[in-house]
């Protein structure tokens, strides 16, 4: 039996909007093994949330998807409805972004966690469900009697943990966590992250974690995929991508969350000019070129393909030597050595 839980093959997702087609995901390959945590790093507009939604075929109605989303070898995109329903939550589940809005304010927590249980295991009696809910809450560090609370009685961190408990309700093999710790305090974030990593360790669950905070991903994940403008621009072991990024965008993301204690980061905030690109108005050639400190003429004709480097790393940039070193050039406009 293969250990690959999730495999995305050449995934393309385009939204049909009133203003024309919006390409949110433009050819992404990704895989998650059993017991592995894969991080997807990127900012608004890079397509990461769209990516996550395809795993359970939850993409918006106006989204057209091509490519394959293989969950345990079976393509989610072409599954029959009955099979898909069975997979949703029992095969894979999602911890949604913005726990504040994902919980129904008029139902108790326990009832909301029980919902997937009722759908997937209709035979369970109330007692068994109650026990299961208690177990789940304890697994995420909450008291079992919290099941009787309403969402507004919980803090942000507690709500996020309830979302994780909900995601675990049907013992999925894969969990997709979309920005699970954004907007949480650093201590609560640490608690939530420790819950997630325990999960993976103890149950062999595979996890895909999405965040714009590269340092959080570096801490928790085994491998990181960096996305920009709907494509993968770098992929590799988490520590390496964070500490020694190849692609200039990964470098910028890494520098955005400076390491406390690093003297080089004192009074030297670094950011990129401009804004994350509008998917409808992508420049020809490398989509990162307008903001890239290393951009040169060679970047303009075509979108760079992913090239392989040492230690199982890939990056999509034409300004990197095969050894991983930056290309030494003295080309015209805008090349910063």
């Amino acid at each position, binding site marked *: 039996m293969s250990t690959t839980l999730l495999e995305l093959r050449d995934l393309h997702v385009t939204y049909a909007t009133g203003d024309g087609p919006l390409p949110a995901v433009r050819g992404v390959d990704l895989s998650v093994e059993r017991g592995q945590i894969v991080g997807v790093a990127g*900012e*608004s507009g890079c397509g990461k949330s769209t990516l996550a939604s395809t795993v359970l075929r939850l993409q918006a109605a106006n989204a057209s998807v091509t490519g394959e989303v293989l969950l345990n070898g079976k393509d989610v995109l072409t599954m029959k409805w009955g099979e898909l329903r069975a997979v949703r939550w029992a095969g894979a589940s999602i911890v949604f972004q913005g726990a504040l809005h994902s919980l129904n304010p008029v139902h108790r927590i326990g009832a909301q966690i029980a919902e997937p249980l009722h759908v997937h295991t209709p035979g369970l009696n109330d007692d068994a469900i109650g026990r299961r809910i208690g177990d789940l809450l304890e697994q995420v560090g909450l008291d079992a009697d919290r099941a009787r609370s309403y969402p507004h009685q919980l*803090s*942000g*961190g*507690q709500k996020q943990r309830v979302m994780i408990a909900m995601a675990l309700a049907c013992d999925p093999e894969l969990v997709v966590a979309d920005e699970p710790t954004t*907007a949480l*305090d*650093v*201590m*609560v*974030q*640490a*608690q939530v*992250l*420790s819950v997630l990593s325990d999960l993976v360790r103890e149950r062999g669950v595979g996890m895909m974690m999405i965040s*714009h*905070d*590269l*340092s*959080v991903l*570096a*801490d*928790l994940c085994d491998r990181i995929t960096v996305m920009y403008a709907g494509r993968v621009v770098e992929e590799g072991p988490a520590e390496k991508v*964070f500490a020694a990024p190849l692609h200039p*965008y990964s470098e*910028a*993301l890494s*520098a*955005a*969350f*400076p*390491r*406390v*204690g*690093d*003297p080089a*980061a*004192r*009074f*030297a*905030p*670094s*950011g*990129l*000019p401009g*804004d*994350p690109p509008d998917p409808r108005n992508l420049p020809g050639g490398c989509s990162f070129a307008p*903001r890239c400190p290393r951009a040169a003429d060679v970047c303009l004709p075509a979108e760079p393909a992913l090239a392989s480097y040492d230690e199982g790393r890939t990056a999509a940039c034409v300004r990197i030597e095969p050894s991983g070193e930056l290309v030494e050039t003295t080309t015209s406009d805008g090349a910063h050595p």
Partner: protein
Amino acid sequence: MTAELRATGLRVEFTTRSGRVARALDGADLVVRAGEVVALVGESGSGKTTLARSLVGLTRPVAGEVTWDGKPMNRSTRGLKELRRHVQLVLQDPSGALNPRHTVYEAVAEGLRVHKLVARSDKTETELVANALASAGLRPPEALFLRYPHELSGGQRQRVLIAGALAVAPQLLIADEPVSSLDASIRGEILALLLRLREQLGLGVLVVTHDLGLAWNIADRIVVMYLGRVVEAGPTEDVLTSPQHPYTQALLSVVPEMEGLEPIVLRGEIPDPTRIPAGCRFHPRCPALASGEADEVADACRRTPLPVLPADPEGHRSACHLVAARGGVSTSSTDQEEVST
């Protein structure tokens, strides 16, 4: 003579729906001077936003005093207006803080009009607005005059907010979570802007944030708060490389990719401000107390409340029985820098 904003013993309370009194701010001292960047750090419920708002008179304290330039804050409408000419607050959430029906020009000109600054200056209103936008990094400023907030990106909106604050030529800027709602790749730009304002205009900046990395990036001094009180304050390098207070130590240890520190994940969450623990308010979660390291002062931790930590613009102080017992209450150690990489 540097202008300074000083808070002494500020207390802010409010009554919850169930009738209990929540002490959002329970005695805080703070001083911010023009020309320095101070990071006010804490988690939600620490009172940092309440403190920032009290400093500009948006929240009324029940006790304590705020002085600006040596003079106590005058709470009359005119007094507050005068204060707000010198101390400007830049709100969190740039998308909500700009009136969707006002153009960028109107948003920036508002301060000028309210304080009638055009009459006092030799420039026209348009020139002043353009200058403010340019100082905030939006060039050419005229191109943005007639845009509406929903046509701008998050970074642009934040800059417009800053420009609006700069237009009245304040001496102090209080920025509440200036980059938390912005994309990661542009955070650095906004932070660099704040530093530039300090360099070029001599502004003082108080940055309210939960992000220790941000404090490391741009702050001269850092003030750490917990449950309505300041628990540690001092020069950023000192506090973040040699934290004294167990809370600061724990907070630092769980920053992702933090090297050289064993993560101390505290249990539970910040207690309800209506039920502040007796003695040292951190003691129920204190790892030093739990591990026995603080046995010598355990009794004090559980029973003796700590005095309000005085604001010391130079030294490094903590409000902790253990630190006091070990003689480390006021360490001014700007020369010895342990740099851990």
